[in-house]
């Protein structure tokens, strides 16, 4: 609805800036600032490394269950003499392997959803802002309908129509998340469109497409990257909610959310099943959130002044 204040939606503290292109923003930072930003991003890098290499080192076997070793607390020695560092779940599978595999699934869902939603949102938002007029109104009303519509209905529909899978979870979440990106992209396009260099390019006879590609797209990338960072965390949380409703990833590919949801009945006798992936999830979302804040400050010269 509130399209005029669109940039303030969801992650509203991004302040449109005078400097225009991503390159300009990235340049003009001292080596020290760059290193500091990298340090803020380090926790994310660690999680990504764990997600990529963890399941290779501690392979997750989704099929074999060992019911005799179920609900063993962290550090227990199992019947075959091995040690379950993070305990076992309700069918005796190793929690460490499951949490590492979960990192892979959850981060994949987070990243893929944001990429898809981001690209769709960026395309629609940019076109909407650039063309204006009827197309703009139509697209933004579509976004309003999407926002007004309980996303749970889409989730159930997709799960019911094509069954549970990681891919379907990504599709569901992407459908409910593109609006955020489209609004930001639109607002950024609108403000860039009026900038002198674009007006100049237009006066020099540049076609619409060239203007879009050359000037506008690069200039809206920075705000979208900031939003995307934060959205990754929110998407991972949203996936956990879907799992609670039984609409998450399948048992053979458990995300963190799935493990948390399945373990919730055991919180009073086997807290580790739900709590360990819960803490992991929490840490990732916080790392991504903090990094998003720093990235915004980094890309926004005015904040550096303050």
């Amino acid at each position, binding site marked *: 609805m509130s399209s005029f204040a669109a940039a303030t939606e969801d992650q509203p503290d991004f302040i449109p800036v005078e400097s225009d292109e991503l390159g300009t923003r990235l340049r003009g930072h001292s080596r020290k600032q760059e290193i500091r930003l990298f340090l803020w991003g380090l926790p994310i890098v660690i999680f990504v490394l764990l997600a990529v290499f963890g399941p290779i080192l501690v392979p997750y076997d989704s*099929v*074999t*269950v060992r*019911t*005799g070793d*179920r*609900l063993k607390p962290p550090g227990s020695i199992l019947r075959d003499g091995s040690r379950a560092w993070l305990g076992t779940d*309700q*069918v005796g599978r190793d929690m460490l392997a499951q949490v590492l595999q979960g990192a892979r699934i959850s981060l994949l869902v987070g990243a893929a959803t944001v990429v898809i939603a981001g690209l769709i949102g960026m395309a629609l938002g940019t076109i909407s802002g650039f063309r204006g007029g009827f197309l703009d109104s139509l697209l933004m009303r579509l976004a309003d309908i999407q926002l007004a519509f309980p996303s749970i209905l889409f989730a*159930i529909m997709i*799960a*019911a*129509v094509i*069954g*549970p899978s990681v891919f379907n979870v990504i599709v569901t979440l992407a459908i409910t998340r593109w609006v955020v990106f489209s609004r930001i992209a639109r607002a950024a396009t609108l403000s860039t469109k009026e900038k002198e260099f674009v007006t100049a390019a237009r006066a020099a006879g540049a076609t619409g497409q060239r203007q879009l590609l050359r000037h506008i797209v690069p200039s809206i990338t920075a705000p979208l990257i900031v939003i995307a960072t934060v959205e990754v965390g929110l998407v991972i949380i949203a996936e956990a909610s879907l799992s609670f409703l*039984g*609409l998450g990833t*399948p*048992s*053979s590919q458990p995300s963190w959310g799935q493990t948390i949801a*399945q373990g*919730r*009945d*055991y*919180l*009073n*006798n*086997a807290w580790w099943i739900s709590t360990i992936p819960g803490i992991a999830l929490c840490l990732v979302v916080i790392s991504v959130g903090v990094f998003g804040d720093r990235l915004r400050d980094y890309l926004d010269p005015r904040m550096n002044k303050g």
Partner: protein
Amino acid sequence: MTTFDPTPSQRLHELLRRRNEGVLSRRGFLKGATALGLSLPLAQALESGAMAALQDAPAGQLNIAMQRVLVSLDPHGAQSVEEPTAVIATHIFGTLLTRDSESGELLPSLATEWTADGSTWTFKLRDDVTWQDGNPFTSADVQGTLQRVLDLEGPLAPLWATVTEIGAPDDQTVTITTSEPLGTVPASATLLFITPFPASADEGFFDNPVGLGPYKFSSWERDSQIELVASDTYWGDAPAVGTLVFRDIPETAAKATAIETGEIDFTWGLPADQLPILAENEDIVIDGTPSYAYYFNWFNSSREPFTDARVRQAMNYAIDRETLATDLLQNVGIVATAPIPKTIFGWSEQTPYAYDPDKAKSLLAEAGLADGFDTHVIWVPGSGPQDRELILSFISNWADIGVNVESMEMEQAAWLEKLLALDWDMDFQTNTVRTGDADFTLRRLYTSTANRNGYANPDLDKLLLDAAAESDQDKRLELYAQANKIIWDDAVGVFPFDLQTNYVMNKKIQGFVPTPSTIPNFATVTIAE
């Protein structure tokens, strides 16, 4: 016009009543009582007695959390076989016959006698029963009820599908005539909750229903709680507990917490792993009983490779039932011995499928599948105790004989559509034999005309139809013994476990009789101090 002049004793009663209701203050009561000539100490003693009785009154309430949410009070429509609806109906309404919780025998209730003569059953009704609004209970009510069940075409209607005529020759007699003899009429009558005719056809009747049962409807806040109060017109022994409040608590952790903190006094259907924790609590008693419910894992016998009985048997031999029962189903399930639970009329013991992966592999090899095969199983999460744990364990067991099974978790409606369309390889679920009679499950699910799992066997069809038509119950038992053997040996499915229901209650509840139907009855329960 006569004037009514109350005696002093009546006046005193009136004073006590008003004090009890809180209309009258302590001082007001003492003043009134001494005015009637009572000594002050006597009046004080009476007052404290009256107030003690008042304090007893709240103790006359039981807070109960059901397994699932109550949707409708209509015991004939779409929700008629749903457990929450049946629980409330058991207390508000009443049936012609009931089943003894322990022996499984049919007992008289609203009907005192029932006899069969060819295709006609005759029920004699009690003549001392009135509805909670004061109207007399007659055969017209039974007639109207059964007609309503047939008209609404709900899940109960198939039980009565062959009924051709419902007669009411006099106020205390009902006759039910079927197109061919039907031996299951008495068993089905235990599910036929009688509602007043024609009142039950009124719009909104089931928002404030009138029944014949030990309790009457008081209030209902949907998805939150329903309150019933003891009926003063009940024909049987008056219930001891004044108020029953059934609350809706969907989440397990909340429900387990509520019974521990005393927010609720009674619940059932908690996950197996919660029971040992609750058993440690001194205030809580757990009363378990074998139920009418059981697990099955059907094969679609019309689909390759399950068209081959050897493959189906191999899948049975692959499952380590004993270990799973010990590890996963402590207190909630036992290894099944027939395609229907032991609690059911018509049960007969079968030769167990011992855990034998080698035999399973050789059966697969005989069937030309030495390298195993890929298949899938459809199921709805939340369908029974430890369902996810069990299906994961089955898949693990099957992987050991080279069969790769994909677990297809589905949403209820989508699952139902696939199930009915026979669009599946395997189907894993719980099932409940509502009437406690084998016919309810076997004839409904295993005849080739029902075609629910792709299995077709003319011998089985004949046995099941004959058993339904037979009114000699011993002969029915013999027929079901043969039917069970065919279903079991031909491995129409894996029949792994019979389920047990655990009623979890505060120790103050006394006299509760566990029911195999998972429809607890509170009419005989008392509350200890």
